[in-house]
Structures are given as structure tokens and as C-alpha cells.
């Protein structure tokens, strides 16, 4: 499991370099082929028993920000990259650009707020403070266009893991674990660590086109909503109940044959699983499924709480059950 290192890396959509380099370093020598496509997707291949191709994909990118302007007082204006709730970003530490300059997101003190206490902050009022007072000083440290990521140390015990970017470094970690296990793969298996998922599934399709697989499985980290404020009938998954298997999500109804196959394998092997109960949100599967002449695709996710915020949580049993399920699936022929 590489979650600690993976989640602490800086890898906002469009700037996945550090995550890619880390993964490449850890998997090199353990795959038959490793390459990077023009967009920055990392592709690794391990030979299987038959001459057919399976693509398994997890995205490297995380939500974050970009410096959009340097103000006269030296504070930085930022714009979101991916879906971020402005209510969850105040009072956080961030790192900026290649050199990872530290900054903080402060906000008007509660004593000075009137009615706006219960108003979601507007992005135009969110500024990053890097400890300077002049534009010129700030320009010595950062520049417009620098990427900005939350800086969060992960924390875990035997049951839980918390930190940033669990969506979808969990998927990346699962893929890396599988590469490290000596699994008797059925297909020639292409492991794709994709870019720019959070910007509208932009990376994975490019890789799928290059690989032309016979089928694809996307490993994601998904929503749950299993908290006391959210009605239980609107939750999508629950932590601790096993990998979530998607039958349909925004823009794609999962290939029914693959959906059934995954459930059967989970049942046959006594692996707990849950069907994801909501169809909101999309994954790279949507893009892959419509690539070339169409690629049957499926989605398996690790349930998580509070994703797209700087502090999300997964249950480590869900992680190991997901790993177990995917490891078994990859040894088998899919029923297509």
C-alpha cells in the first residue's frame, strides 16, 4: 500500500508530474513495458495468458487550484481546478508551484463578520497568504499559473486512513499493489495512471485509444454520504461494507455483462461488496467506453467520506477487499 506517500504528493490536474514520477520509480522493473503518452498518462503493461487486452485505470490527479493573479498586497488570487466546495477551504495550508512554496488560506475574523458567517465564501474573497506584503516580493516566490495543492499529512490506524487526494490515489495504490503481486494475469493487462480526470475525464480516453483494449476496469474512490447529517436513503455507499460496484453513473450505464461478472466473482469468493446506490458523478469509464468503436467498461470503487475536501477518509478493510476482488478478477476471463 502506497497511500501515505501517494496522498501526500502534489498532483493537481494538469500537474501530475510528481505523482507520475513516484509511481514510475516504484513499478519499474516489475512490468513488461512502461511508457508515458503525450498527455502524461503513465501506461505500464504486464503480459497475460492470452493475447487480449484489458485496461485497468486509476487517475493520478487531485482537485486543487491555480494562481490566477498576484494582488498588490502580495496575496494570491486562486481559481479552482476540479470541483471544490469553497466552504471547505478556509484555514488550510497549501503549497504552490514547482518549489512547493508554503501558504495559508486565511479569512476575515469571525469578530468582523456580520451576516456573512453563514454565507458560503466567494472564490474572489479567498486569498492565499505567503507572508509577503508587496506584489514584487510575491513575484520572487510564485507566478501566475502555478498550481496550488492542499498540504495535508495523512494519518492512519488499523481501520482508517485519512488525508487529502484519496480520490483517486487509492485507485493508484491498488494498481501498484497489483503490479507488485505476482498475479497470474489472464489478459495482457495495461495499467493506466491517468491525468485530468477531475477536469472532465480528459486523460483516460487518450490512453484507451492508444491501447485499444478489449475491456476496461476503472478503479475509483467514490462518495458515501454516510454521516449523521445526510439522510440514509440518499447515501451512495457506506464505509466498511466493501468495494462499491457501479451499475450506472453520470453519462454511462456500465456494461451489464461486466457488472454481473464482478458481482459473481465477489460472491464466489466471499468478498463483501455493495452496489453504489447513486448515479451522480462520473468516472473515466464513461470516456473509455466511447473510445474507438466502444470498449466495455466497469467501475469498482473504494467508498470514501468527504472527498474533494482537504480531509477525506477511507476504511482500510474496504481497501483490502477491493484489492482482493480486483486481484481475482484479473486472473479470470470476463464474461463478454
Amino acid at each position: 500500500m502506497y497511500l501515505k506517500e501517494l496522498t501526500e504528493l502534489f498532483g493537481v490536474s494538469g500537474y501530475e508530474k510528481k505523482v507520475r514520477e513516484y509511481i514510475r520509480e516504484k513499478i519499474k522493473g516489475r512490468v513488461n513495458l512502461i511508457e508515458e503518452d503525450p498527455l502524461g498518462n503513465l501506461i505500464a503493461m504486464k503480459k497475460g495468458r492470452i493475447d487480449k487486452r484489458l485496461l485497468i485505470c486509476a487517475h493520478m490527479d487531485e482537485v486543487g487550484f491555480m494562481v490566477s493573479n498576484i494582488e498588490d498586497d502580495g496575496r494570491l488570487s486562486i481559481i479552482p481546478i476540479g470541483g471544490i466546495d469553497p466552504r471547505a477551504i478556509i484555514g488550510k495550508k497549501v503549497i504552490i508551484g514547482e518549489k512547493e512554496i508554503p501558504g495559508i488560506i486565511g479569512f476575515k475574523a469571525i469578530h468582523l463578520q456580520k451576516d456573512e458567517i453563514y454565507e458560503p465564501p466567494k472564490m474572489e474573497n479567498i486569498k492565499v497568504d505567503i507572508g509577503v506584503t508587496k506584489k514584487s516580493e510575491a513575484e520572487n516566490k510564485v507566478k501566475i499559473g502555478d498550481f496550488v495543492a492542499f498540504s495535508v499529512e495523512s494519518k492512519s490506524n488499523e481501520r482508517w486512513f485519512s488525508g487529502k487526494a484519496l480520490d483517486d490515489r487509492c485507485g493508484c495504490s491498488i494498481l501498484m499493489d497489483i503490479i507488485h503481486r505476482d498475479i497470474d494475469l489472464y489478459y495482457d493487462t495495461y495499467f493506466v495512471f491517468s491525468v485530468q480526470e477531475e477536469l472532465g475525464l480528459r486523460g483516460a480516453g487518450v490512453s484507451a485509444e492508444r491501447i485499444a483494449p478489449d475491456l476496461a476496469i476503472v478503479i475509483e474512490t467514490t462518495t458515501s454520504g454516510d454521516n449523521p447529517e445526510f439522510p440514509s436513503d440518499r447515501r451512495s455507499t457506506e464505509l466498511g461494507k466493501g468495494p462499491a460496484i457501479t451499475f450506472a453513473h453520470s453519462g454511462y450505464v456500465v456494461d451489464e455483462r461486466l457488472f454481473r461478472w464482478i458481482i459473481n466473482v465477489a460472491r464466489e469468493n466471499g468478498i463483501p461488496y455493495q452496489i453504489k446506490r447513486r448515479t451522480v458523478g462520473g468516472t473515466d469509464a464513461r470516456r473509455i467506453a466511447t473510445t474507438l468503436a466502444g470498449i466495455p467498461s466497469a467501475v469498482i470503487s473504494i467508498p470514501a467520506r468527504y472527498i474533494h475536501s482537504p480531509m477525506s477518509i477511507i476504511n482500510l478493510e474496504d481497501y483490502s477487499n477491493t484489492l482482493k476482488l480486483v486481484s481475482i478478477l484479473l486472473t479470470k476471463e470476463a464474461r463478454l
Partner: protein
Amino acid sequence: MIIADVLRSLSSTDGPSGYEYRVINLIEEEVKKIPDVSAEIDHLGNLIVKKGGQGKKIALFAHTDEIGFLLTKKESDNYWRFTTIGGIDPKAIISQRIKIYTRSGDIAWGIVGMLEPHLQTEETRRKVPSLDDLFLDVIDGQDRVDTGDIGVFSVEPFLLSDRYFTGKALDNRVSCATLLYTLELLNNFIPKAESYFVFNIREEDGSPGAKTVAYRLKPDLAIVLDVTHGDISVPSMPRIELGKGPALGVGPVIDYNYFERLKGLAESISVNYQIEPLGGRSGTDTDLIQITRGGIPTLLVSLPLRYMHTPYEVVNIRDIEETARLLSYFVARGGE
């Protein structure tokens, strides 16, 4: 002393109102490094450091407590409701990791969760959850926490740049650091005053700490050190800026003669200062000290601070140096 180092230890030590002893103990250790002073912790937990001298009795106060959290009600499994000690903006609480001190002395950890954007509706997106709607997801030590346990923001302080320092509880640990530095500088003088450096408890809780010590000491002059909002424009008020020296309070709770003397001294020793008009009460320990035991002349000296009561407050190291320089001269000259 190295100010940033002392500030770092002060900020990372936890002590919400009523639970300041860890901070008090830390300051007592720092005081031991300073020669020719005597220290005592009173029956309530205030630390009083005496520096001998011939002349008036001057007491300087800095509160040691910080804002924090109290667990109030277990909702289910690992979910807890909480309330705050001191006023905290709910927007600054969302997606924070909270360190919880359990009754057994162990540490537990929780996260203030925020529902994933994917599952939110137009309606829920429009407002910031109130404290009643927020919850703590206790993922480490859920069997050990209990109603009444206290919590603090889990934040590592750091130097934001060469002179700006950020972290939690700088309100009012920055004043604690300033008093310690003043004590150190006072060693360069033969003071014409008997001075007491008071590190008091419970300011965020309505000032019972400072008032009781003021009663006991009955000083000829009390100087309160606290923080004020810096680098933000408040309508009809002068803009107080970080790096431009201490803000000297003026108004009904301030003794006008001593104020003029302190201002005059600042000018003669070239300490930059700013003036903070205080209409009515100041919202600091000053208000209660002034009306204690027959009335005590009071001064309020404030260090400018950004983003008060958020997890990353910001101060300027130079302000600490300059404030300590001014106060050491003022005490050494017997308040003249």
C-alpha cells in the same frame, strides 16, 4: 531567546480555556532560563513571574488560553456533536483535523466532515452549516472519547516567510512570547519598578483569570497584551498593519496619562506604533482589570494579527521584537 522557536513551542502546545496547564508549564520552563526572576503558579493556575525593582508596581498580563472544542453528544458509532470554546467561524472548522484530549490522557483524533459536492443539492450548497449541523468523525480512539473531552485544531506552526509566522493559538501566544522576550530584555536594566509578568488563564472564557490576579496584586498599573485585527480594513477605523509595531489602545478603558507616557517613550526610543481607538470596552482582559479592587489604571498593547480565531493565524516577528523593546524600557523607567 530565538523568538520563532519559542513561538513554535507555544503555538503547538494545546490549552483551551480551563485547560491551560500545558502552556503554563511550558512558559514556566522558559522563565527558568531567565536569571533574577521568581515564578509561582497560583491556586487557579495563573503563572505569576516577579522581577524585583524599586518603584511602582507594574503588572503585565498575557492570556495563555486558546479557542477550542468540547465534545457534547455522541450521535452514533464514531460521530460526535461538539461546541466551541470561544467564537469560531464554522467555515474555519469544516474539513479540519481535531486533536482530542480524552479523560484517560490519551489522544484521540477526529475530522469535521463535509459532504462530498457530488451529493449536495442546490439548497444545501447555499448555506454554511451551523455548529449544530457540524459533526466530528472520530476515527481514532472512538472508544475512549467522552462527553466533555476537549479538542483543538491540529495544526503545525511554521515560518511563512523570513518574518511572518503562522499557526494556531497565536491569539494570544504571540503576547506570551512577547512578555518572555520583555523579561529577557529587562535584564539589561536596573528597573525602577517592581514588575509582575502574569500569564493568565481563561480570557476566551470571560476573563476570570486576569481579574483574580489583578485583585491579588493590586498593581499601580496593569498593561494587557493581546492581539488585534491586522491588515484588514474596518469601517471608520484606522487600518492596523502587521510589521508596523504595537497598536496602543486608546479609549475609556485606558488610562490616558499612562497612554501618553507610553506613546512618548515609543517616540523617544524610535519604536513604531499604531493607535487603536477602543470605543467602549476592548473585549480583552483590560475591561475587567480596570474595575478590580478599587480600580486599576490600565493600558492595552496589541500585536497585529491576521485571520483571528482560524487555524492559521499570522503574526510578524518584528512586531514582537519592537513591542518587547518598548515594554522593557517602559518597565525599566518605572512607567514613565
